[in-house]
């Protein structure tokens, strides 16, 4: 079994290095960091919510949007570059099975997502820590906190882990689409739509029974029942900042979210292998 996963590991390492060298990754990373810096200046506007809340929302929003874009585009690009450059044919001619190739590709991209999210999380931690120092000099703030911390830094990394799982689902879903799709562009467009569907899947599930027309009810019901619910991972705005609305998520609930995400990653990966098994590569 160790031998079976070794090629996966080698392909994953290679994919990760290849992805890290891509200009697109640097552009998105630079954009994210630049936007993170600007969030610092947006605080001068009166947005109605507190300054720290604004910074947290802004940073997490960036992590979600840019992370999703990166997961979709890099997965599709790396997969199709192997097919177009015919390196996949050479690779699969050696004793590397198709499932090993796909799993290796997925793991490489998933590690890239971890690196991306981790860099952003460290930046967020720095920005928040910097602002917290300024706030902790105000006696009213200290008094209102009554001994509680203003920012729960562990929540940032708790959220990072959830986002990493979510991006893993998105990446494996993109791989599934790529496994039967003929072009890179088609894969990216369909995966973007799938991402949107996953974000509003909960509405489809709640709402489909209210449609009178059977066909529409059936279609919306199918969408609701065949896509994962991404909102389950979007709890960032209820974390980090000490407030009456802070979500106290228990370990069991947290584990259930992870289990849910991992189950979808495994399912999508297995389905990609199933779909890719007889694909003509030449």
């Amino acid at each position, binding site marked *: 079994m160790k031998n079976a996963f070794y090629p996966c590991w080698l392909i994953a390492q290679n994919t990760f290095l290849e992805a890290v060298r891509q200009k697109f990754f640097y552009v998105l990373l630079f954009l994210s960091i630049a936007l993170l810096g600007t969030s610092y200046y947006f605080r001068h506007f009166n947005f109605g919510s507190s300054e720290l809340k604004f910074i947290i929302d802004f940073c997490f929003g960036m992590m979600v949007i840019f992370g999703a874009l990166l997961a979709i585009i890099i997965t599709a690009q790396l997969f199709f570059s192997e097919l177009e450059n015919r390196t996949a044919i050479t690779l699969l001619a050696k004793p590397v099975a198709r499932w090993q190739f796909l799993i290796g590709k997925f793991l490489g991209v998933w590690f890239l997502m971890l690196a991306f999210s981790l860099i952003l999380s460290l930046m967020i931690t720095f920005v928040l820590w910097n602002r917290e120092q300024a706030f902790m000099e105000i006696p009213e703030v200290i008094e209102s906190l009554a001994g509680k911390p203003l920012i729960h830094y562990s929540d940032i990394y708790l959220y990072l882990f959830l986002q990493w799982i979510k991006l893993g689902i998105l990446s494996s879903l993109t791989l599934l689409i790529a496994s039967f799709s003929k072009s890179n562009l088609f894969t990216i467009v369909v995966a973007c739509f799938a991402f*949107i569907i996953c974000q509003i899947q909960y509405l489809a599930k709640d709402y489909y029974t209210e449609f009178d027309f059977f066909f529409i009810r059936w279609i919306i019901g199918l969408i609701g029942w065949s*896509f994962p619910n991404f909102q389950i991972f979007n709890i960032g705005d209820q974390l980090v900042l000490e407030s009456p609305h802070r979500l106290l998520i228990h370990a069991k609930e947290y584990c259930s979210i992870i289990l849910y995400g991992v189950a979808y990653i495994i399912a999508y990966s297995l389905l990609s292998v199933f779909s890719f098994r007889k694909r003509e590569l030449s």
Partner: protein
Amino acid sequence: MARFTNTIVIIGTLTLLSYVLQPVENYSWKTIKQNQSEFNVSSIHEHLGQGLIFGLLGEFRNITADFLWIQMYTYWENKKKDQTSSWVRLVTIISPRTRHFWLEGARIVGYDIPYWKINSLGGSFKVPERVQDTYLKKQALIAIKLLHQALEHHPNDYSITMQIAQFYYDKLKDKEKAAEYFLLASKSHHSTGLASRIYAKLLVEFHREQEAHDFLNIYLESLLKDDPYNDKYIIIKKIRDLKIEIDKKK
């Protein structure tokens, strides 16, 4: 045929997986959904078109609300009443946890919009007082409705309850209702002495001096003795004045 089989297998597997994972999903989704009021279809039903768009944004929803709030002010500056009230509503739907949106939104709806309407009809000198009164009351009722929705997200909030009381007092001239909300505000968390003092004043207006006297006495007892910023001296003076008035009546 192979492609058709693949599609059926993929959709079938995913549907089955979703069914199997339903208890796992529900376990955490229940808690998350409860805490996120905007996750419920019923709360975005009126704005389903827009609500759907913002639902897509995930974590960007709050940021979107912040920027829409700024956008709302461009309508406010140009005194576009329909767009202003519609965007106030939209922002509060997207981000119901920000109390500022509810309060400022209700103030715009209740205080600004009726005067824009009156000014567009020729100003307060031209428009008959009865018509002006109708506009003011209509908008105040809309603002109160908005604030009642705010209370669902911020139960027992002092500022929101005070604002409802003020609308009843200033705009609807319903002192009984205003007193009811001033009393509620005086019992809210982070309440200041203002709500209690106004409530006592209203009781005096209703010729219930003894009740006002007793109410202020209870309030005085609740004040922290070592807090230099509380209004205990004003309250003591009010109690004395009331006592004189009660004695005079006797």
